[in-house]
Each structure stands twice: as structure tokens, then as C-alpha cells.
């Protein structure tokens, strides 16, 4: 899995950090998403998919890799 975030779309809701704290963080100054781990291990995939659903701004995408 490859995770892609779009800082311009992000509205700093913090939903992704609540959902997958190993993968996402927020910038100190404006709360915009920071991608900690663009290739999270399998055990985190469910959390990441959940974050995609919960992101209010459509700022997170995943590309599945075989």
C-alpha cells in the first residue's frame, strides 16, 4: 500500500491522527497533515482505509501495490 496526502485539501480535522497515529501526524503551526509512513505495513492497512473514509476533505488516497 502507498499512502498519498494532499496538503492543499487538508482542513486539519485531526481525524487521520485519531485513526492511524503511526501513519499520520499534524504540523505544529497549522495542523495540516504530515505523512509519517507512506508505506505502512499490513497490520496498519485497516486503520489507513478507515482514515480515508473519515477524512472530511478527501485529502488521503491509497494506491494498492501487489
Amino acid at each position, binding site marked *: 500500500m502507498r499512502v498519498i496526502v494532499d496538503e492543499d485539501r487538508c*482542513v*486539519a*480535522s*485531526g*481525524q487521520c*491522527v*485519531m*485513526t492511524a497515529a503511526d501513519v499520520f501526524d*499534524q*504540523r*505544529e*503551526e*497549522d*495542523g*495540516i497533515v504530515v505523512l509519517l509512513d507512506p508505506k505502512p505495513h499490513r497490520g496498519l492497512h485497516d486503520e489507513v482505509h478507515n482514515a480515508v*473514509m*473519515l477524512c*472530511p*476533505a*478527501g485529502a488521503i488516497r491509497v494506491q494498492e501495490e501487489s
Partner: protein
Amino acid sequence: MRDQNLETPTTLPIRRDPACPFDPPPELTRLGESQPLTRLAFPDGHVGWLVTGYDAARAVLSDPRFTARPELKHSPLPRPNVRPGGHDKPPAPGWFAGMDRPEHTRYRRLLTGQFTVRRMKALEPHIARITADQLDAMAAAGPPADLVQAFALPIPSLVICELLGVPYGDHAFFEEQTTVVVNMDSTEAQAMTATGNLSGYLNDLVRQKRARPTDDLLSSLITESDLTDEELTNIALLLLVAGHETTANMLALGAFALLQHPHQLAAFRADTALTETAVEELMRYLTIVHLATPNRAASADVEVGGQIIRKGETVVMGLPAVNRDPGQFADPDALRLDRTDARHHLAFGHGVHQCLGQQLARIEMRIAYRALFDRFPTLCLAVPAAEIPMREASFVYGVWQLPVTWEQA
């Protein structure tokens, strides 16, 4: 598919069943059972839409073709929700809740750094102390107590005051004015006056802080941005009103709901691991932003849920029905504090306007519910449930009072 343009539009359902104060208005539930969107008649003659389906609500709130600008929207209620500058005028400078991208983004990003998950976590000890102080005072005064005045209102008021830099000594004033603004039983003129009073008060405060900055959000906005006094006043107003009124109603209504669901309350008490999902489930089940908001207007023809929403039509979310959509939540009318997907609720909205204060509200609720039921193991209602006055005709649902009692140790 039925052509809904041929149907008689409905008016916005408001009346709840007094026997089920936690359930959406029965008429709203009924509408949601047959279709995700219904034609809605507005008091000014406009015909728009009411959304009751979960997917349709997400689609509208996340689509930039729907605008939040007040001058483009019709009010579904005879008494519109008053805003600085007027409900049918362009948003007042700084009132970013009524703006679209990119204008909205500019204001929101000045604030989001102050409301991150990490920042809010750092406030935990402080909120825990504020909560303990309120509960100590309630215990010292002895039973009975009104849980709204002793617990639900002062905690979020104190928290937002300290964060913003508003003197808490003035809380009686701004709580009273806010009540007038959100209560639909007050006239539009009364609501406008109350909004004016709040603006005047905050405008004075902004000028004081410009002269003598202190250590708070308002002061740092003044020193670190180039916002005008008018913008700062409107931002402060938005944060102050949104920041105490909503959370206060969640705290009181959530406590009432838990007291009325003794098995769920027993499970909550027995298991601290339940705190986070319990808060999300209470948010979903109670959906206190229940009436007329969020709403948007279509700036183009857009297809949603199999219907074409025409350019210019206003769309109103019926969040209480949306959050009980059986297509999204299994057994949606049951309060189940261990519901793992409760967080998918839209009680904080969705899209670019999703609640700015959601991480703060979550932390306040987690701490306050836990502390309340730990501190008062025998807490119960002091009057029959049917006598609790419900805020049916208010933009934010909740209780006006919650008389409780307990056994003194």
C-alpha cells in the same frame, strides 16, 4: 424511481415524541425510511431539499459545488439563525463558517494549529482540574443540583474562555446572550440585539488585547496575523458561541441519556476502555446539531442520491436521521457504547467545514462524563424523566435543566 418534483414538499420536521426525547422527530425518521432526499418547502416559498440519507449527506457536504454562503441560502425556519452582518447578506469579515474555499481556507488555517490532536491532549490535565473543581463545588453544595448549571455549562465555558482569553467573570452575560441567539422562540429582533451585544463585548476585548496582549489565542492572532478588529471580533464570536453552547448541551444531554440507559451506564462505569467509543456513540445517538444546519446551496446542477439538485436550491441536512441511517449503522436506534464504527457519525459535520473544535470537544466529553459518574456513583434524576424540559426549538438540542440527586457519603 419516483419523480420527487411531482410530490408535495414537506416542511422541516421539528416536533419530537415527548416519550422518546433522544429520538429524532418521528416525521424526520419516517421521511428517511423511504428516500435519502425529500423536497422541502421553505417559509419564503422556496422549494429545496432535506437530506436524511448518510451517503447523500456526505456527498453534499464534501462537494465544492455546494456553497455555505448565507446570501445564497434560504432559511428553512421562519426565524433564521442570526449571524453578524445578517443571515441573508454576504458573510461578515472573519465569519468563515459562511465562506467557501479559498476565502474559508485562509481563516481556518490561522486557527487550526491551535486545535490539533496534540495540542488538545496537552490540555487534558487542565480540563481535568476544571472538571474536578466543578464537581467538588457540586458535592459541597449537596443534592439536589441542576446538572446544566453545576456541570455541563461551566466546564466548556471555562475551557473556551481560557483558551480564547475571554474573562470567565463575564460568563453569565455571554451565556445568556447565546441562549437568546440559538433559541427559536426569541424573535429575530431579539436575536439580532443579542448578537450585537456579544459583538460589542468582543470588539472591546479585541481592542484591549491589541493594546496589552496576554497569553491566549486571541492575543496571538492579533500579534501574529494581519487581521482587522472586525475580523478578529467575528472569529472570537464564532469560537465563543460554537465552543461553549454545543459541548454544554452534549454534556447534559449525554448524562441524561446515560441515566436513562442503566445497563449502558453500568458498562461505562465498569470499563474505562469504553470512554472513547462511548463519546462517539453519544454524539451519533444524540446528534445535537439537529435542526436546519448544516445547510448549503447548489451553485450548479448536481446529482445526489439519484436526484438532480438544481442550481440555486438550498439543501438542509437532517443530521439526526443521517446518523441513524440503517444503511450505515446496524440497529441505529439503539445506544450501544461499544459500537466500533460510531466515529463515522456526521454529528461534527463533514467536508471543509467539519468542526474546528472537534478534538477539544472530544477531550472535554471524555474527561467530564468519566469524572461525573466516578464522583457520584449514585447519581439519578431528581424528577421524572418526562418533566425534563427539552430544547426542541433550539438550534442546538439538549435540556434546559437537568435536576439530579445522589446519596451523600
